């Protein structure tokens, strides 16, 4: 009996000795899983099986020179599968839902990016990406059911005319930030967001110039232009 008790004490002592190590292991495993699951600047990666670039927005990841040199030029763009998955994720419109989108992809598959190498990204591929984004924007803006779903909770759900919804910088920023939040997600860097706001403000002003500010159609045009500019940009197409 005595021997049995001392054996149990020994086991407990060993367990106690290994406990911190076990806890540390569990913690590290959970962190590792968390890192693998972190999304980039938008939620596409989980849909595109493309989650390797999940720590894009960590803002401070240090580079191991050996890893950096593993590829002559690292990936930085999305291939067409990643791109489609991203557009679907951020707009909520599956590629197969509307024939105009599906047809565009089918007909322009050879023009969309095939590799993830930034250096292999050509201007024709960029244009094909941009033009695909405009297709998604058409449905977000034109179809009332998609518009209501997408803009739910914003002031643009019911297409108020510009003199009510886009008459000052605060209102315009609301639209820009709404799009940035939807398309680029919360991980966008503050400096990048600020620059994007400036660029988009210029676009909104130019699009509104000379237009009927009492017309909802003008709002539609602005929504479409802003959507195309942001959704078609590198914020969506690059990792």
């Amino acid at each position, binding site marked *: 009996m005595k021997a049995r008790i001392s054996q149990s004490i020994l086991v407990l002592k060993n367990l106690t000795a290994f406990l911190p190590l076990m806890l540390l292991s569990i913690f590290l495993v959970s962190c*590792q899983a968390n890192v693998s699951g972190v999304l980039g600047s938008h939620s596409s990666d989980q849909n595109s*099986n493309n989650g390797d670039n999940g720590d894009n927005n960590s803002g401070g990841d240090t580079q191991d020179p050996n890893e950096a040199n593993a590829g002559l030029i690292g990936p930085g763009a999305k291939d067409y599968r990643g791109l489609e998955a991203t557009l679907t994720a951020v707009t909520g419109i599956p590629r197969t839902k509307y024939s105009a989108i599906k047809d565009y992809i089918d007909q322009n598959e050879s023009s969309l990016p095939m*590799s993830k190498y930034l250096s292999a990204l050509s*201007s024709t591929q*960029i244009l094909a990406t941009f*033009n695909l984004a405009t297709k998604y924007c058409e449905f977000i803006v034109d179809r009332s059911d998609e518009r209501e779903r997408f803009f739910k909770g914003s002031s643009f759900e019911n297409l108020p005319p510009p003199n009510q919804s886009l008459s000052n910088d605060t209102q315009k920023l609301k639209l820009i930030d709404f799009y940035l939040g939807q398309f680029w997600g919360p991980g966008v860097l503050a400096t*990048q967001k600020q620059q994007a706001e400036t660029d988009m403000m210029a676009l909104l002003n130019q699009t509104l110039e000379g237009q009927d500010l009492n017309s909802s159609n003008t709002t539609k045009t602005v929504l479409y232009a802003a959507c195309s500019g942001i959704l078609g*940009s*590198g914020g969506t197409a*690059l990792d």
Partner: protein
Amino acid sequence: MIIKKKLTERDKLEYLTHGGRTKLNRRDFLTRSTAAAVGYVMAPSIFSLIAKRAYGEDLNCPNQGGGNANNNMMAHLEYAAGGGFPLCREFVCVGPSRENGDFLKSYEKYAIPDDQGPTKNGFDPNSTIAGLDFHNGSQLMKAFDLHINPGVKEHMATMAIAVQCSSDTTQNQLSITHSFAQLGLTGSVVPLIGNSTLNPGGGRHALARGTQDPSIKSTLVKDPDTARSIGGYNQALVDRLGTPDRAQAVLEAMKNLSVDKINTLKNKFTVDDQAKVLAKCGYMNAKELPFRYKPDELYNAADPDLVAAFGDDVGAVHACIAELVANRYAGVGVIAENFYDTHDGTALTSNDQGLFLGKKLAQIVNYFDSKNQPLHLNCTTDGTMGVLFKDGVIQVEDVGDGVLRAKHPGDNSLCAILTLVYDPNRSASDFLVKQNQAQVGYFDENGVVLDSSIAANNPSNAALASLYNYLALNNMTDKMSTLQGMNGKNPFERKEEDYLIFKPKA
């Protein structure tokens, strides 16, 4: 707390070769396995990287979508049949001397009954193009002669490469379309166009061994609409915003936002500064490209030169592709015909295809003539058509005007690359090294003699031999060994006399 995921060697390899780890479905896996089997990897070629680095270094951002349209080089087109068009029934295949007149004992395996073959009857010297002789009754040549403009043939020559092919079109490595961008023939808008997406080369055939450059993408052109849109002009965007200026402003915003993103790019592998510069150039060009080349400029079916050359075929795919290449918007073009396979057991269908091809070729050359542009055009097919014999007797049909041709029951492996060249600044006799010789490798009465050249039993080498002749025409044979896939060697150099049919311009 920042936790850095340690990458395994496999991760690194995956990034290096495929740009990231992705789950593969069966089709992807098969595609990649096939790709690996033919000897290319998905990483950008060193050549293309060097070329693009040079673009980045001068920071002028030349048109990355196309680049510098090298107007000094001949344009290149590939007319690729999707099945077994009997090319070898049209021109006179010759024997070991490779000289015209070295007729085979019989052309029955080539679908021509001995009574009508050249051995007994010769051929009409007027119905030919410098280089190759064509059979009496060749429908291809008949149609070509009917449609070619007067005087154009005087600036043309032909050659052929004997090659045994598989009857599986997509596996035959007969395409060389990716090599031209490396030589500077990139087009001002896109480097490569084609009406088929079956292969990365833009057509139905696979690319010659090792020549695939992943940075070259074929842009689909299948009709006037797609021809007009290769510059990326988005008519819907312009219509919705009211003016091109506003559409341009959207693209400007898109570019600015992208450049901001590039400046902050960070991922597991450092994206080097050159890549960032190149991507910025890509976005800058993307902003300008659609407005630099508007649809009407790229393809206008009412253009008098187009109408004159193509007539009712002005909207056909060969017209669209020829127009974009002749005007240097695209570097190289591939016309893939889907219906050459004439498995109906007749001679007539193949005959009609010969008429069809002859007419299209003449239209294309006429258009290049109207633009004063030199042209190098390869006709390829995946084997010709078998011939029907009964009890050893060839089974023929009258295809018109008393011309007899064999019935074709199905594919065979007798094949050739038939090349036509046109240069308004050269006369027919200026093209050929030897006036009486226009054939690489040779034939006998049973088909291609497999040891007659390194191309005879190797479609990839046949395509490269054609490329070598293209380089000769352009005074650039020294570039052969530098091209991707050549590993610093020119396999034809040691026996130039066997492989060089065309010669440089004096």
